[in-house]
């Protein structure tokens, strides 16, 4: 169990960039849930930023950035629409998330309130991967590590305040020819059951999706190529809060 004193130590270490991914995600989740933790993290980051050396900004670098920005100013922002991942808004939050139990027993009893199995946007050009990298590095975004049964991180998701999200597959097991990975939102309201966010190409560099309000976590399951109305075999899951 993480005590308040432990958490304050972790906040300091996270601000310093000295945590591994799992503990960093714990701090991010705590900051998302508790404004006081968020404030302390912001203060520590501000302090730590003073440790960075100012090496001067080479004019040549600035001269490269401005044209690059102009060139990419029309890059679309793929996850700001919900067209690619049909979902249904959830009922309100209630109680602590039961996502772990829910996920591991997903195939058993939980009826879905709503299903939408769509192919999510998974561009192979560099823009989605770049945007995903930006979100994962964004100190104000929430990061979810999707881990397998053995604790290994199999994919990482970054979620911004407005629900724009990116999934970066890392080490997903290979699929058979008639199988697919399917991404699920795990609602805070456990009774609502997992909600499909769409199918995922595990070879994509990054996948854009939109995570509706009311999520307590996300999960990836192994499914038939056409997808399923409920998770068949969850291979990785992670908590958002």
């Amino acid at each position: 169990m993480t005590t308040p004193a432990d958490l304050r130590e972790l906040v300091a270490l996270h601000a310093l960039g000295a945590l591994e991914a799992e503990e960093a995600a714990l701090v991010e989740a705590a900051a998302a849930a508790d404004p006081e933790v968020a404030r302390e993290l912001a203060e520590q980051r501000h302090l730590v930023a003073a440790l960075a050396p100012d090496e001067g900004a080479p004019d040549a670098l600035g001269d490269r950035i401005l044209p690059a920005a102009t060139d990419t100013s029309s890059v679309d922002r793929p996850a700001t629409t919900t067209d690619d991942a049909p979902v249904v808004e959830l009922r309100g939050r209630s109680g602590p998330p039961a996502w772990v139990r829910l996920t591991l027993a997903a195939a058993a009893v939980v009826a879905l309130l709503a299903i939408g199995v769509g192919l999510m946007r998974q561009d192979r050009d560099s823009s989605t991967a770049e945007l995903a990298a930006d979100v994962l590095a964004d100190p104000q975004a929430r990061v979810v590590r999707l881990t397998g049964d053995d604790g290994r991180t199999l994919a990482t998701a970054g979620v911004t305040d407005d629900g724009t999200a990116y999934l970066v597959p890392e080490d997903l097991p290979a699929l058979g020819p008639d199988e697919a990975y399917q991404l699920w939102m795990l609602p805070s309201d456990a009774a609502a059951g997992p909600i499909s966010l769409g199918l995922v190409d595990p070879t994509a560099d990054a996948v854009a999706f939109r995570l509706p309000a009311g999520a307590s976590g996300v999960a990836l399951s192994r499914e038939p190529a056409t997808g399923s109305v409920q998770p068949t075999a969850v291979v990785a899951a992670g908590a958002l809060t």
Partner: protein
Amino acid sequence: MAAAPVDDGTLLARLRGRDPEALRLAFDTHGGVVLGAARVVLGDQARAEEIAQAVFLALWERPERVDPRRGSVRTYLVTMARSRAIDVIRSDRSRRQRESADHSRTEPLARAAAFEAPEGVALEVRQALATLPDGEREAIVTAYYGGLTYQEAAVHLGVAEGTLKSRVRSGLAHLRDALTDGNPEPQP
């Protein structure tokens, strides 16, 4: 080139208005420290410049992600640059551990071993670091300038992980006090 001072609110408003000169202004104001934050971890100018470019392009594409209530533009950019640099070195390290010994990043690790802040760190910050007890300064400098996790820093320093964690926390508190005494800037 020295940039004229501009407050964060004005800068962000101009970026949201797609004013390219605002991006140039952001770079002129913060580019040096963003580059430094990446280079001090990577020990590689070219890769640090790639990260700095990506950070400023992200600012251009998504200025709304910077919430001034949660920190300054400078803190946001520096945190992002450091985070991306750390991702790069940890990814490199994982790959090298699978392949062979890690002989990279000689400069950052040597600096961590010497417990020295690099050139370019503000004089008042260097002076504040110098006021910390040795254990606290070593913990912070090793983790920050070495780009190490606290577990790695503990091994590097030959102390228990719990000791390292508590020294970082108390060290940052003392650093804040030392900076605030002479300079109120660290308050977000």
